């Protein structure tokens, strides 16, 4: 059994993912993979890489769903998912060795690979399926929030953000301190109705999702669709109106 920090950290670093504009391109997944395969939890092993069942370690995966309403109307939602760095992270207390831990200074949930015995209790405990077992190394791995990038003194300050964030083509990802209600990411979450994933699990996730916004309505308040008024039902009559129309260049 491993302890969570006695007091929740004041600083809660996390991600905000905008489902309104995520086009499901997988850029975040792959850029994460290339940074992290040489990073804190390196490597993010790929097994049967060129074979019948290629399967590897990914810290961030994108799922695309079709949602169908009773009316038959449907839409597609692209949903990137990674560790949510929960305040009450269920993956930590179940760890028998102390490998799985939550940083007291910024709330990032990490795994110390040196202590991990590969028992997988943490992945059973995580309701989001956000942990990734490296069969080859025999240990659990997970999103580090790019711990070795966001504070890295060897990088210029502008690059000190998680790789999934800086690479996102649509601008659908934001990063910051969600423990500070005055931070821009907190304001964004508030203004856009950002929500917790599966709040009923009581995990208090740090990461937030911004819901798809209502699409521009097709009908007016009376349920009518707009249309243009023709100036005349006959095309010939419409053209006749233009014979006297003198224009200037």
């Amino acid at each position, binding site marked *: *059994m*491993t*302890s*969570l920090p006695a007091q929740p950290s004041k600083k809660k670093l996390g991600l905000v993912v*905008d489902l309104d504009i995520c086009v*499901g391109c997988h850029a975040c*997944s*792959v850029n994460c993979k*290339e940074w992290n395969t*040489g*990073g*804190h939890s390196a490597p993010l092993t*790929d097994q*049967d*890489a*060129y074979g*019948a069942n*290629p399967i590897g370690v990914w810290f961030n995966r994108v799922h*695309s769903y079709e949602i169908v309403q009773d009316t038959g109307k449907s839409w*597609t939602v*692209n949903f990137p998912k990674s560790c949510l760095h929960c305040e009450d992270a269920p993956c930590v*207390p179940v760890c028998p*060795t*102390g490998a799985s831990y939550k940083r007291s200074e910024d709330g990032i949930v990490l795994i*110390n690979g040196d*202590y991990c015995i590969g028992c997988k209790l943490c992945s059973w405990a995580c309701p989001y399926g956000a942990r990734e077992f490296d069969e*080859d190394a025999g240990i659990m791995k997970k999103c580090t929030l790019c711990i*070795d990038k966001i*504070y*890295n003194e*060897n990088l210029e*300050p502008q*690059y*000190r*953000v998680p790789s999934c*964030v*800086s690479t996102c*083509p649509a*601008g*659908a990802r*934001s990063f*910051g*301190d969600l423990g500070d209600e005055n931070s*821009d990411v907190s304001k964004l979450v*508030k203004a856009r109705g950002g929500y917790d994933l599966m709040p009923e699990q009581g995990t208090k996730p740090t990461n937030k999702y911004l819901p798809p916004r209502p*699409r*521009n309505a097709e009908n007016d308040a009376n349920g009518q669709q707009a249309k*243009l*008024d*023709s*100036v005349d039902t006959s*095309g*010939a009559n419409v*053209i*006749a109106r*233009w*014979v006297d129309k003198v*224009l*200037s*260049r």
Partner: protein
Amino acid sequence: MTGFFALGEEKADTSPKVSDEVKTTTCYMCACRCGIRVHLRDGKVRYIEGNPDHPVNKGILCAKGSAGIMQVNSPSRLRKPLLRTGERGSGEFKEIEWEEALSLATEWLGDIRKTDPKKLAFFTGRDQSQSLTGWWAKQFGTMNFAAHGGFCSVNMAAAGLYTIGGSFWEFGEPDWDLTKYFMMFGVAEDHDSNPIKAGIGRLKTRGDAKFVSINPVRTGYSAVADEWVGVRPGTDGLFVFALLHELLKAEKIDFDYLVRYTNAHWLVIDDEGAADHGLFARDKDGNPLCYDGKTKALGDASSADVSPVLAGEYTLEDGRKAVPAFNLMAARYMDEAYNPDTVAATIGIEPATIRRIAAELAEAAFDKEIVLDVEWTDWAGRKQDKMIGRPVAMHAMRGISAHSNGFHTCRGIHLLQMILGTIDVPGGFRHKPPFPRPCPPGPKPAGHTIAPNQPIDGMPLGFPTEPADLLVNKDGSPKRVDKAYSWEFPLSSHGMMHMAIHNAWKGDPYHVDVLFMYMANMSWNSTMNTSGTIKYLTDKNEDGEYKIPKIIYSDAYHSEMVNYSDLILPDTTYLERWDCISLLDRPISSAHGPADSIRQPVIKPDRDVRPFQEVLLDLGVRLGLPGIANEDGTAKYPGGYPDYIANHERMPGVGPLAGWRGIDGDQHGKGDANPKQLEKYIENGCFWSEAFTPEQSYYKHANQSYLNKAHAMGWIPNNKPIVMQIYSEIMQKFRLAAEGHGDIQPPERDRQRVKEYFDPLPMWYAPLEDETLDKKEYPLHALTQRPMHMYHSWGSQNAWLRQITAQNRMFMHSSKAEELNLVDDDWIWVTSHHGKVRCQVKTVEGVNPDTIWTWNAIGKKRGNWGLDKDAPESNKGFLLNHVISELLPAKGEKHRYSNSDPVTGQAAWFDLRVRVDKCTEAEAAENVTWPLFDVTPPLPNMAPSPKTVRYGEDFKSEEHSGKSGGTHMEWVGNRHENATSGTGVRDGYRNSLKEEDK
């Protein structure tokens, strides 16, 4: 919960060493050409990220670009030149030295050049060096050259360049930041992938614009659109004409824009049967005429002082009648044939939807007019105190392009843009330099005469404007092997690569001696009729010689095309080479200003491979090609490709790169060659860009300051305004020839076809396959799309990308699946008039119910691309190409036209009609695709692909850096748009704040 262990908190190293150095270059994981920063450690690639300073991607990088590490380490990389030892297709080769390979190629090519240079057919794929490869073909003396545009986007390019002087992809972009209504036609993960994603993200985050996607399939961009209009494939043109019908009848027309910037007011001669019927009436100096409503007389339509009228019938000096082009156009689309009630069922949507979208377009264009307080001067020297914008932007690509009615449909979209006054205005569609250019730009296609040891008299690809420009013999037969610029496909300005192998095999119009290809998987996913093409490549004459006697191929990877080639010249990967992305070819400019870029080698090849462009120049020296070899036989560019990039001049002062020209490197656009030019590019992040002034930024077709600049830069031949073509006189010239006028007329077989399809106004006709097929027998449309995370066939060798998609399925609407008694993963036969393929089904909601679709280029041949013989790509994944014929269905007569657009020769991939049948239990039990091919053997000395990849384990530092760590940065995606839409977020850009908001 409290625990027992609290020892876990490691001191995670937050500042480990990342790299020894960072080098910039240009991505090549697709055609988007983003700037990248490559972190290198111990000579290996540690990390690739977008370059924030780069004008294309501004720091972002897609899944493909982020997977570059697995591309440059792919086990399928070729290692050394190869010579075929077994039968073609057997996959048996031996390694040879470069000297032997180049000598052999020189011998084969030299024999042709000495006798009949057109017997070389030189075709390249998605490379970005066509200004070099086309020039090489010219210097060699063959007109049989093209790149892949003929089967990709020539309908978009030709329709745009003949109509508005620019085009969608790569020559224009929506005004993402100002548009209020964005319509996207037929775009999946097509070109310009990162700028489109970024643009959509910003546009939607602003929250004040509507985004409508017209596409039979709802994935990716369409999934985040405000409205998805799931039209039946190939009916977009009808939809556009119905919108025009509504707008015209309601007089929602930007009349001023039309008379100022288009030929709407030009008078068209109405004299049925005359040799000039349908051409523009002109004065004795050749100026087009219009009717001046003030003087009540004919006037010079191009004069700034004329007061045009757009409707009526007028009498010319010779007594004949003439009508304004606009009148002809309006009469056509106001006809009841284009009433939404008439066409909606064919399109597969409700008439009310068409009417509403027309109303929304009108509202956005005319009620939400944008006025920018920017002074500018028009082409006539008149000062304007503001820039008016009609904020409707449109973008269209492959879904329009890949139909046999795509040229006219694309012209129809441009017509819609013109009516609304939205081309190159604030909030509209914006040209990227060097466009706009005259409609069409010069020059004409070259290669009318071919002579031994002689270059042809110009570049092989160009833009015909009259029948005399066609490359046809006296009897009207084609001069080019692909039949481009023939009466069958007169405006095929990107060539017709998809027909080259078929025609060379058949000897129609003639056989070739050598087929030389680069980076084009023409025996597999880049060809129609894959099995047939394999037969063409392996078929022999009675004497035992192959019908296509010699095939030279350059590729970096063990693609399927390698199997069917005789001599393989192994290319490098994109991180091991020089390249230039040139204004002479396919530049990286944006609407904000011109730009070009280079690739520099950032890692060294660990194989005996050479960049193709180096090899091409080397061959040019060996063959003694003028401009590449000096008269004494030495190399004109002894430093190879980088030497050529910096020092070659196509015209005086104009070379491959526009930046830092002149001996001192202080000239941009035109200037002498600068020997230190590449160093300047590297210093600047491997690109050059320049920003237009605000006054040059819009109305570029008629903006004096812009036109002067464009002329000075060498982009346009003079600074005259670019007049957009509502009515195409060029089309009418070809139609007149078909009607029996002039010396050069189509052969009888093609006469009716040319007459029908060379309509000077945009027209709609059902996709050509539909004409002959029984729609009850083939009730469904079948399409492909490219997944956002993959591109071409390269994606499947990529250990990371193939984990996202290793098998494609056939997507089908749930209602159709129910009708056919199908559930997910059932095996089905997809049958066309041409053939059949076996695959698995996946039901979805977001697709037009009469359409099925799948991901393109996932299917592989067993044993290629470094993949295991049991890989899902080859055993369950499939190519739809098997059921697409390169020829139209036979209609009784002997001749079968290519399955292409009759105007441009664009391959009509998406005209495909099929039926679906459930496989029998026995068939399904086989649990594999059909056709299933033999396993390709490994190439000599090619190491087996690794089972487990642990890339990056070497980069993990054992020792803690000891550094305590820097400060992280808060980052808000689309910060500016989030700030201005009232979220309370501070304004700025990503992780930097605007000064006043700090």
